[in-house]
């Protein structure tokens, strides 16, 4: 046992976390498509390893060391171009890696529901997982772009092949078209980020894509102003900033369950993380100029997303719009960095933003997991037609109530802490913005409770009198996700302890 612990501590854990899913995807390519069991086992094993190692890495972070990058791995790759294979985590990426581990593993469990073309499915899904892990662990910007694209390209196929259409009320959404839209938007975001990063590289003139080296680079305020705008815009498209969000509801609602979880749980966070880490981290002067405007847009995001969600009767679309609204909270928290010296505003707001990314990740993944499972059983995504499902599927009903409570920010769940931190931070800077944002909480509560009411309580739709409840392989992910949210809600210091020093470090450089 000791030997194993020692071996783990000396191993390149971040590489293992990041590359295990990709390795599994490669192995799966060489397995006959008929051996579904083997493929599923490999996928679960790979994501399980990643999760375990992510927990190990997370546990090693503490308030003392999270301000700097830990577990660094550095190897020469393309020295002529100033590109290296450089990984590391700090207090900002730590929670993201953990989130990624949790979502990947639970998503892999729910992927057992996929009943055709499993080989291709798992190969692609595992590639996405490697991509998102890589985005959060890489400290080289070229590597970052590489992983970023690795995470977004397979989404096209995953949504296009295994997705579902939205029929029901309102405009139909076809998953093949949603896949194309998602791809174009994500790649447009990626292209803007790539331009910004090449610009950073060229203007810094140190022939290096290393994040740590670029932190010390000397770039004038005016150049930072434009670079920030480019990079921010790129990531904002990915994170669903209104008015660049239209791919998000369509893509998220059309994706297969496990991929909705990945998209909402982790891929959106790549945008939020990129803004804090790269846009703000490398262009602080630009950030100061732009962030006040972004705070304003964030409030629009929160309100607009919530109002749109209020209108939906398609459960996945409603959750997707709630994501738009909740990502607004991330933007709002980040915007607190505009005035790094006003009281505790910046530190509260930005830590709150990271907290919200984690919290929204697990809760929305849970919501999508439940919605997808109910869809699988009832073949209907229109919750107004479900009616009283809790009486036939008590497990799913209870879990949905828990998830809805977490999403609307019930104290004791993680969403509450995150929103509290962000609103407190914003209040110190601009009470009006905070007041408008808090207004959205009422709308959020309305649409979530409405979905609980129509979907799970009230008279049962006789069509669904004989349906099954959740299987064990579905219950486990629900429990993991709900417990993660509860743990972070009851003991917020699990996250804030390591996030705050890293945010402090970020603020000290501004």
């Amino acid at each position: 046992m000791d030997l194993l612990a020692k071996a783990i501590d000396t191993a390149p854990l971040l590489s293992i976390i990041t590359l295990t899913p990709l390795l599994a995807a490669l192995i799966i390519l060489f397995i006959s498509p008929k051996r579904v069991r083997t493929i599923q086992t490999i996928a679960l094993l790979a994501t399980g390893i990643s999760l375990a190692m992510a927990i190990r890495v997370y546990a090693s972070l503490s308030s003392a060391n999270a301000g700097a990058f830990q577990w660094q791995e550095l190897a020469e790759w393309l020295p002529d171009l100033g590109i290296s294979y450089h990984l590391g985590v700090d207090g900002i990426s730590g929670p993201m890696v953990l989130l990624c581990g949790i979502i990947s593993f639970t998503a892999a469990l729910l992927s057992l529901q996929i009943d055709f073309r499993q080989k291709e499915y798992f190969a692609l899904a595992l590639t996405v997982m490697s991509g998102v892990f890589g985005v959060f662990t890489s400290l080289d910007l070229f590597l970052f772009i590489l992983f970023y694209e690795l995470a977004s390209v397979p989404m096209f196929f995953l949504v296009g092949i295994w997705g579902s259409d939205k029929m029901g009320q309102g405009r139909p959404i076809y998953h093949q078209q949603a896949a194309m839209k998602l791809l174009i938007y994500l790649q447009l975001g990626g292209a803007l980020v790539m331009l910004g990063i090449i610009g950073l590289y060229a203007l810094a003139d140190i022939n290096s894509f290393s994040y740590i080296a670029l932190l010390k680079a000397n770039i004038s305020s005016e150049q930072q102003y434009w670079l920030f705008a480019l990079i921010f815009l790129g990531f904002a498209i990915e994170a669903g900033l209104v008015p660049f969000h239209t791919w998000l509801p369509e893509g998220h609602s059309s994706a297969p369950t496990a991929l909705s979880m990945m998209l909402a749980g982790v891929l959106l966070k790549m945008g939020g993380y990129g803004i804090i880490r790269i846009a703000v981290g490398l262009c602080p002067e630009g950030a100061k100029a732009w962030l006040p405007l972004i705070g304003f847009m964030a409030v629009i995001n929160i309100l607009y997303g919530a109002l749109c969600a209020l209108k939906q009767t398609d459960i996945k679309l409603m959750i997707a719009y709630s994501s738009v609204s909740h990502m607004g909270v991330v933007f709002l928290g980040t915007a607190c960095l505009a005035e790094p010296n006003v009281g505790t505003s910046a530190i509260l707001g930005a830590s709150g933003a990271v907290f919200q990314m984690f919290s929204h990740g697990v809760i929305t993944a849970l919501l999508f997991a439940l919605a997808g499972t109910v869809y699988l059983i009832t073949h209907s995504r229109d919750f107004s037609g479900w009616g009283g499902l809790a009486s036939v599927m008590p497990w799913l009903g209870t879990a949905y109530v828990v998830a809805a409570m977490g999403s609307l920010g019930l104290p004791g769940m993680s969403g509450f802490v995150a929103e509290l931190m962000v609103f407190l931070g914003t209040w110190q800077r601009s009470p009006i913005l905070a007041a408008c944002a808090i207004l959205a909480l009422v709308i959020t509560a309305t649409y979530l409770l409405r979905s609980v009411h129509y979907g799970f309580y009230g008279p049962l739709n006789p069509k669904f009198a004989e349906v099954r409840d959740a299987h064990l392989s579905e219950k486990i992910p629900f429990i993991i996700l709900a417990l993660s949210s509860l743990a972070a809600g009851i003991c917020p210091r699990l996250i804030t302890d390591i996030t705050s020093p890293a945010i402090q470090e970020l603020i000290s450089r501004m």
Partner: protein
Amino acid sequence: MSAPTSPTIGLLPLILVAVTALAAMLLDLRSKPNPRLQNSCTVIGLLLAALSVIPIQSQISASGQPFTYWSGIIAVDGMASMFTALACLSGALALIFSIDYLQTKRAYPGEYITLIPFVVLGLSLACSTKELLTFFLAFELMSLPLYAMAAWGRFDLKSSEAGFKYFINGAVSSAIMFYGISLIFGTTGSTFFDQLAINFDLVSTPRHAFVLGSLMFAGALLFKIAVAPFHFWAPDVYEGAPAPAGMFISTAPKATIIAFIMRAFWSSLAIQSMEFRLEDVWTVTFCSLALLSMTWGNIAALRQSNIKRLMAFSGIAQIGYTMLGVMTAARSTGVATMGISAAVFYITMYSFANLAAWSVIVLVEYQRGSSEISAYKGLAKSNPFLAFVLLVSLLSLAGAPPLAGFVGKFYLFRTVFLAHSGWWWVVLAALVNSVISLYYYYGILRPVYFEEPADNQAASGELQASWSVRVGLTVCLIMIAFVGLCPTLVQMGASAGAQVLSSAVLP
């Protein structure tokens, strides 16, 4: 002889290609032609020619001197040998990928197999000369077989039309080129590259005639590689010509001519004097051509339903990206070496990805009898390997990581930025363009992966691809997938190769 004449080994690749071409022709004359035998002999000949470049390359890098024959009419330097090898390889791959197609009744295998080595010979000669008239000869040696290839499906109206169209347009462009050469000769009194600049300073002739001549020369070159606005022939020819011919026409000439453009325009035609900086003229020209070409190509490709037409527009756009590298290879940018290697890397990777994608087009046209995109329904189910080839090659063309196309684009954009940070808008335009291109590249993959095969297609079962096609495709896939990420190879392309190339381009 004691005089420092270069050993004949320098001519070996050219000789080998010429012998292969003649042998291919003779083999077709047998009373019972055997296409398979003829094909394998030609492939082997071309591969041998490609291999024979290796000792030449090593001798050049050891001595630092190119092999020169007949006072520079033929000068085999690093760049020449590299592009000779590339031309031979693409010829060989095109032949391998067409093996199955050539078995059909309506194909005339002998003609196709004979024409390819002649084109390769023209290409090899074109990149090994430093004299305008010889270049013109080589250019024609390459062009005429290409016209014949376009008209190769001789009872197919579309193919005849394609050949005719290509020939008329090509003949006009050759005439324009020849007129350009005569203007250059008239103003400088020489056709040797090395002499042009020297004579230009000595003779006080009207300068604008020289510029006009160079522009005409450029126009004909750009016509051959289908850069907008010289591209109108390309979609019709690619669509009308039988798929194997389209595959070769869209690939082989492009790399060589891009290399030749860099050599000609950044050394001998980039004349500078007090009031006169031609280099700036060329930079502006290439920059506007690059932007026009990628935008036009990408936007026009969006609406295509025939995959061959689509690939024509995709090729126009891809050449547009390459022109970005050509543009930055000017001496004045300070990153000339980088620009050259970026352009060369990109066009090489384009060749492999394009050949791989076309090989699937060839097979589908051969077995499903159509090159409409709707004919690709359910290819992933009926033939996973071919679908995978199409996937990888199109994703590489679209610039998805970690494939070669992505690294190539990254490398290009970075060079443009480094050359002049004020050119960020060029990079932005190129990036927006590559996002636009996703729509049609992924649009092809939609029927391939998302849909079920139509009944009559499912009935025909798995598409047959010979083992040699599979081997060739695997080579292409490895090139596309691993070159981008393998440091040693990238470095070879980036630094060592660039040194060789830049010494050939820049005097």
